[in-house]
């Protein structure tokens, strides 16, 4: 036994030496490649540098900034492209906020918003006294795995380039986005993202704060029409005109969302669970996840399905709109009697409001009643509140609890953000109407 062990140990030691030798030669090859890539990043940055500015927002007469983002030249005469959400506070409160640009060399000047595209989170602005060569846009979405770079002013630490990989168009997203596997941090919003040839493929828009390098770009193809619109204008539009555009675009986004969820002829797709047919994955772009409680000693078994459209537009701090989320909690028990089971069901049905800010939304108004659905009765509560700064857009929150079985039941939550009242209610009606008891 011992000689065999000794033999195996020897083999392992030999293998380790071979592996480390391979590692060394591999490392030297990679060093060369890495240097080449970094060199490319340097070239991209140097070429783009004169055309990129930091966009800063100031509250009132303050000289300390309230927020900041990035912008880049897309036409001569100081025409810059950035994210709408970088300009949003100034668009909504022009008397309270002003925007300025600042070049990497420290030159500053005023900024005027020319055109906005809220659905794609883009804005074209004019920087006074700034005229840099425009960067070239490439409307083609790069393939998965191709090298990409993103430039901006993250966390106010100066002009920065990050290196990553394009993962092509995000699959099944409501609004088109490029998935960039690289770092995009706060302050880089509105900055350009490049392919290896130094052409702009998209505009930095967002990243997941607690994930690793999952970031998103708005494809460059959406910028062209907006730039043309901005250049075609004879005079810069008044603040009220831009706000009206924002409102119309938000309505268009919300209408498109509800329409995409409401096929004209088909009944709503349902998922069967625990004897109930409940609204399932309503469209390709809806992201659904299901989970259960595997603990066998729990007196109540809970299955949960959560779906989200991930279509929300980030307008301002604390304001997401044009989105939809729904979840079903399906409960069953063999251990609890009807009284205790119904108490559990009540707990699952409570509505806890959400995270609206007072400057964006009004308080809720609710209605709650028992209704007859297909094959069963349910308690239905609906609460609505208005978006304060956008006429005709509402948040709608609904809760449904089944009332037909003593040891089985569900609580369903539906939240619509920033939708037209009638369209939202019609959707809710279809949503509730699709629920069915099948036994």
């Amino acid at each position: 036994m011992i000689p065999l062990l000794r033999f195996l140990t020897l083999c392992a030691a030999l293998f380790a030496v071979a592996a480390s030798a391979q590692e060394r030669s591999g490392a030297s090859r990679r060093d060369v490649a890495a240097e080449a890539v970094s060199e490319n990043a340097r070239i991209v940055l140097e070429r783009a540098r004169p055309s990129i500015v930091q966009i800063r927002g100031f509250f009132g007469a303050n000289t300390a900034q309230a927020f900041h983002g990035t912008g880049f030249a897309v036409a001569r005469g100081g025409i810059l492209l950035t994210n709408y959400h970088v300009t949003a506070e100034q668009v909504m409160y022009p008397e309270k906020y002003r925007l300025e640009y600042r070049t990497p060399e420290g030159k500053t000047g005023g900024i005027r918003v020319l055109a906005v595209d809220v659905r794609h989170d883009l804005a074209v602005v004019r920087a006074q006294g700034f005229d840099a060569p425009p960067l070239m846009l490439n409307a083609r979405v790069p393939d998965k795995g191709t090298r990409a770079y993103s430039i901006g002013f993250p966390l106010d630490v100066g002009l920065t380039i990050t290196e990553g990989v394009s993962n092509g168009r995000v699959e099944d997203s409501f609004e088109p986005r490029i998935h960039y596997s690289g770092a995009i941090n706060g302050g880089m919003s509105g900055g350009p993202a490049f392919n290896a040839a130094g052409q702009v493929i998209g505009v930095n828009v967002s990243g997941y704060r607690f994930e690793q390098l999952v970031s998103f770009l708005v494809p460059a193809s959406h910028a062209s029409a907006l730039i043309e619109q901005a250049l075609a204008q004879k005079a810069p539009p008044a603040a009220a005109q831009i706000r009206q555009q924002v409102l119309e675009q938000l309505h268009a986004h919300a209408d498109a969302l509800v329409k995409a969820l409401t096929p004209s002829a088909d009944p709503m797709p349902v998922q069967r669970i625990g004897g109930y047919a409940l609204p399932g994955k309503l469209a390709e772009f809806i992201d659904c996840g299901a989970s259960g409680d595997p603990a066998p000693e729990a007196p109540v078994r809970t299955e949960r399905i959560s779906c989200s459209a991930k279509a929300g537009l980030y307008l301002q701090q604390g304001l997401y709109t044009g989105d939809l989320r729904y979840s079903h909690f399906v409960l069953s028990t063999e251990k609890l009697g009807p009284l205790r089971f119904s108490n559990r069901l009540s707990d699952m049905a409570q509505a806890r409001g959400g995270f609206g800010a007072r400057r964006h939304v009004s308080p809720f108004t609710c209605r709650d009643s028992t209704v007859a659905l297909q094959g069963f009765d349910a308690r239905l509560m609906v609460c609505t509140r208005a978006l304060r700064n956008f006429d005709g857009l509402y948040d709608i929150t609904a809760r449904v609890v089944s009332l037909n079985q003593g040891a089985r039941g569900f609580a369903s939550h539906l939240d619509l953000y920033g939708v037209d009242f009638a369209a939202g209610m019609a959707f809710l009606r279809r949503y509730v109407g699709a629920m069915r008891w099948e036994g």
Partner: protein
Amino acid sequence: MRVLVEILDSHGRARWREHLALDGDPARFTVGRGAAADVVVDDPHAAALHAEVEVDAAGRARVTDLGSLNGITVGGRRLRSAHAVELRDGLFTVGRTRLRVRTPAETLAPELPESEGLRAGVNAVLLSLASAAVCVGFVAYSVWLSAPQNMAGAMATALIYALLLAGAWVAAWGFVTRVMQSEWRWALHAAILFTVLGAVVFLDWLFDALWFALSLPGWPSQQTALLVAAAVLGLHWHLRGASNISRRRAALVAVALPLAVGGGFYFVNAIAQARNVNYIGVELKVFPPSWRMRPGGSLDAYFAAAARLKDETDRKRRAMRGEDDEDSPGDED
């Protein structure tokens, strides 16, 4: 004539007794701080010769002010230069000293059999125990209802907390009673607390079950209304039990205090809730389906009514116009 003059403490019990053997009809004696008075009171607010009391053969007593600075209080009213004012139950106040004049002609309440006091005490104890049992039952029920993983532990914790809170409440009222009446009356205060509390919890549960059975939306102010009613009743009984306060005055305090305090809290809470844009007041309480007595309404009717939410929501939005924007945004975009 033999007359007994009692000097009373703040609870109305005799602190000092003075037997007087008086001549004449009516018999007369004086009250004052000076040595010349027949009944001497140790009270700086009394005059040297403060009042004269005359008692006729029928036992009726009348009081006359002998020119004092502070006057005489009879039947709760302070009289200046009173002249032959008839006393009720022989009670009057000189300065800050309460006195009672008793004569052999007085009528006394019949003698209490010894068992009756005992029975009253036993009744209070029984009532407090019975109502406490109901309350403990409700605490146990609510723990049982939530079906926690560790039922015994959750039950013990809830009961200990409930009994500690109830104990503190009863002790506080017992202390007040001890100060006012020089007895504790634990059983009485425990009976009041547990009866009122039990009734509130039961009614709240009953209403919830009733709204559910009848397929009606809940009444949002139900708990508040029940709590105010409980506070009024409970405070009235506690006050009557703890002090000599009159029924009318106790009722006044019992209504005014909960309305002022509860109304204040309610008002502040209502403002906070109206300001909170994330607040949803509706609680969906669900009971077993077999309890239902009325079928659900149609979806058409529901959504026809829900369409009215828009007007109400728009009204709230309009009501917010003109408010200042409090929070200013910041950070990177």
